[in-house]
């Protein structure tokens, strides 16, 4: 049977998945583009949490991936490896954080431009305006 630690892991994992589901729901179903952008950032942030979980180690003396000994020998390195978390997921995450920021800037600028063109940020209204425009041309 599952111990207390496993029960906690299950609960935490389910909540992360629920957060992801909520973010995807907002991304698909909410009409306002700024809310879609905010939900996109939440989705990305939740994926960072998932990555951090994948790199974490489920044991007690656990330390970050930074070696404090600057002249290590084999024994200290082995000890360090036995405690450290995985450095690869945070590496993937860091560039993702910064690139997400730049893409969000791009999306916000595009959203402001869209507002200048259509006068609204509601995608349903924009679709209606586009339909009217197309009907007028025909």
């Amino acid at each position, binding site marked *: 049977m599952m111990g207390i630690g496993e029960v906690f892991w299950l609960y935490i994992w389910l909540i*992360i998945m629920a957060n992801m589901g909520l973010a995807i729901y907002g991304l698909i179903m909410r009409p306002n583009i700024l809310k879609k952008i*905010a939900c996109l950032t*939440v989705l990305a942030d939740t994926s*960072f949490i998932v990555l951090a979980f994948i790199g974490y180690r489920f044991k007690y003396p656990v330390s970050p991936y930074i070696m404090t000994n600057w002249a290590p020998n084999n024994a200290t390195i082995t000890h360090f490896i036995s405690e450290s978390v995985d450095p690869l997921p945070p590496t993937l995450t860091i560039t993702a954080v910064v690139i997400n920021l730049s893409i969000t*800037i791009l999306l916000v600028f595009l959203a402001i431009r869209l507002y200048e063109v259509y006068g609204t940020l509601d995608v349903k209204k924009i679709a209606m305006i586009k339909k009217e425009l197309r009907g007028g041309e025909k």
Partner: protein
Amino acid sequence: MIPVLHLVMLAVILGVSFITIFLMVFERDLLKMIVLSAAQSTFYAIVLYILLVPDVVLAYIAVAVGIYTALLMFAVKKTERFEEA
């Protein structure tokens, strides 16, 4: 030995973040939505700190709590404040 205290903290903070995201997704006032989004980012930063990824925490706090909030608030000021749902 299992670090149960850390797991309890993680569970509580993630639960609060779930509530925050729920309120955020169904909030009609976009300014309130942005404030809730910043609160969610703070909780996530704590989670990342407990999961021992200090680099990501440093980048994440600056970006998610500071810049996203300012950027989205600016966009709300330039566009419309309420979402018709």
